[in-house]
C-alpha cells in the first residue's frame, strides 16, 4: 500500500471505507476501497469477491474500472478509477435548478450503454441507484458497486446496517420473484431516468415493501392476471386494491419531452416480460430525434 498516498475519506461502501488517494509513482488519483474482514470464517467477503471477479471481466467507458487489488498485512484493498461525484451528490449540488434536457438525455444514454454492455455479458447489476452511478469531471457516467447484489436474493442490509433502499426495485422482486434477469435493472433505470429529469426527486420513495408497491400501482395501475399472467403465484404476492392511474405522466415528469415520457413508460412496466431491454431502449427515438 506504500504505492498510494491517502488523501480524504470519500464514504462508506458496501463492505468498508472508501478513500481518495494518489499513486506516488504516476500521480494518478484513484479511489481505494478497503475490504473489511471481520468474519474469520468467511475469508474475503463474497460481495468483494463478486465485485472483483465481475469487474475484472468488464471494460467499458460507462463501467467503473478496477485497476488493482492489493493485499498487504492481512487487508485487501481494491483500487478503482476515481470519480468526482455520484449522481446523488450531483443532484444535491444542483439546488433544484433544472438539468439541461441534453444532459438528462446524455446521462440516460450512458446509463443504458453501460447496462447494455453488462447485460450482453450476462452480468446483472441488481442494485442500481443514484449513489451507485459515478460521474467524472466531464460528466461521464459509470456504473459502480457490483458488490451488494447476489444471485440468490438481494440482501436487505449492507455492512453499515443501513437498510438497502427499495425505491428502485421492480414489483416482481418486491413480490419475492427469485429468478432475476436483466429486467430488474431496466426498472431501476426507469426510476432513475424520472429522478434525473426531476433533479433528484425520487419517483417512488416507499417506506416499506407495502408502501413501495402502493406507490407503484397508484401511478401504473394495479396489475392483474390479464396484464401480468401468473402474478399471483409469486412467493410474496398479496392482492392490492385495484387502482387506476389518475395522475398523468406530464405531471410526474414535467421536464421530459413526449419521447422521453414514452421511453419512461416502456421501462416502467410491472410485468417484467413486457419491460423494454437495454438494446431496444438505446434505439428509442428519444435518443435520435432532434427535438425542440
Amino acid at each position: 500500500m506504500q504505492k498510494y498516498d491517502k488523501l480524504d475519506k470519500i464514504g462508506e461502501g458496501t463492505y468498508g471505507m472508501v478513500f481518495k488517494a494518489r499513486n506516488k509513482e504516476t500521480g494518478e488519483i484513484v479511489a481505494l476501497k478497503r475490504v473489511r474482514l471481520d468474519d474469520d470464517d468467511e475469508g474475503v467477503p463474497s460481495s468483494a469477491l463478486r465485485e472483483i471477479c465481475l469487474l475484472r471481466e468488464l471494460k467499458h467507458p460507462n463501467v467503473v474500472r478496477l485497476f488493482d487489488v492489493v493485499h498487504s498485512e492481512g487487508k485487501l484493498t481494491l483500487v478503482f478509477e476515481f470519480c468526482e461525484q455520484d449522481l446523488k451528490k450531483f443532484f444535491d449540488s444542483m439546488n433544484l435548478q433544472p438539468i439541461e434536457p441534453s444532459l438528462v438525455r446524455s446521462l440516460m444514454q450512458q446509463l443504458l450503454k453501460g447496462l447494455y454492455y453488462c447485460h450482453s455479458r450476462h452480468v446483472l447489476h441488481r442494485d442500481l441507484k443514484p449513489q451507485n452511478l459515478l460521474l467524472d469531471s466531464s460528466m461521464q457516467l459509470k456504473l459502480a458497486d457490483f458488490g451488494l447484489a447476489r444471485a440468490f436474493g438481494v440482501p436487505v442490509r449492507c455492512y453499515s446496517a443501513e437498510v438497502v433502499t427499495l425505491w428502485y426495485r421492480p414489483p416482481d422482486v418486491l413480490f419475492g420473484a427469485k429468478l432475476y434477469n436483466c429486467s430488474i435493472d431496466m426498472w431501476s433505470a426507469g426510476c432513475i431516468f424520472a429522478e434525473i429529469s426531476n433533479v433528484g426527486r425520487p419517483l417512488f420513495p416507499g417506506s416499506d415493501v407495502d408502501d413501495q408497491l402502493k406507490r407503484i400501482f397508484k401511478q401504473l395501475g394495479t396489475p392483474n392476471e390479464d396484464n401480468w399472467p401468473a402474478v399471483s403465484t409469486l412467493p410474496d404476492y398479496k392482492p392490492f386494491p385495484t387502482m387506476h392511474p389518475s395522475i398523468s405522466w406530464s405531471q410526474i415528469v414535467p421536464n421530459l419531452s413526449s419521447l422521453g415520457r414514452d421511453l419512461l413508460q416502456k421501462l416502467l412496466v410491472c410485468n417484467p416480460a413486457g419491460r423494454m431491454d437495454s438494446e431496444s431502449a438505446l434505439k428509442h427515438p428519444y435518443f435520435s430525434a432532434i427535438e425542440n
Partner: protein
Amino acid sequence: MAGNFWMSSQYDQWVFERQDLLRFRFEDLKIYSEEEYQKLMIFWANFIQSLATEGGNSSSTKTRMQVIASAIIYFKRFYARRSFKEVDPFLIACASVFLASKVEEHGLLSMSKLIQNIPNCLKRWPSVIFDLSSKNNGLYDAEFILVEVMDCCLIVYHPYRPLTSFIQDLAKDTTIKDIDQIEAQCWKVANDSLRSDCALLFPPHVIALSSIIVGVELMGREKDIKAWLPELSVDFEKVTDCVNTLFTMYKLWKTFDERDQIKPLLDKMPRVNSVPSQC
C-alpha cells in the same frame, strides 16, 4: 456469468502453449519427471473433488461440479505461475475450494468446517497426512495469494455449456439411440479432463467437442457422430491435440495407483513454509 469467452480474461491470459507450461514448471520439473508431475496433478484434482464434495453444501450435483471444476482450475493456474516449493499445494487446494464456493455463489463454506473435513477427505489416501488445524491463518493468507497470483481472474469458462449445445445439435439426428447415455458419458469425460492440462491449453468448446469424441469412442459408438462431426466449423487440429491429451491422461491415470504411489511422490516435495509469505 455466461458471457463471452473470446472477450474473457481466460482467453486473454490463461490459455497457453505446451512449451509455456514446460517453462512455467521448470523448477518443479527439476524434481519430478513430467509423468510424475501429471500424476501429482491427478492426485490434487481428486483431493479437491473430495474436499468440495465432503465439505460442500448439499445442493444439486451440477452446481457442485461447477465449484469443483473452478477450484481445480484455480489450483492449476496457481501452479502455472508458482512452483510447489513456494506455497504448500495442500493449502492452495483448500483455498481453491473455499474461493470457488464463494465465486460460484454456491453458498458459503465456512473455513473452519472445511478444515475439520480434511481428515475425512484424506481417508482414500491413508499414507497422506496433512493437518491444517493449526494453520487457520495459513488458509486465510493462501486465499489472498491465490486471488493475487491469478490476477483476480476468478471467472472460469468450463466445457459444460458448449457440451450441452453440441449434444443438442447432435440430437437433431433422430437415428441416434440413447442420446442421454452418450451425454452422460461425455459429461464424465469433460469432468475427467480436469485431470489433464486441457483447461490450460484449449478453449472450452474444444474440450467439449473432444470430450464427445472420446466419450463415444469409449462407448464404441464412433459411428454415431461420423456424419455430424465434419459439419462443424472448429479448429480440428486443436481438437485432435486435445483428444490425444485426454487419452494420454486416461492411460496414465489407469497405471497410477494413488494409494501406493502418492506417498513417495509427496515425500519428494520440497519443504515450504506452511504459512505463505507474500509472493
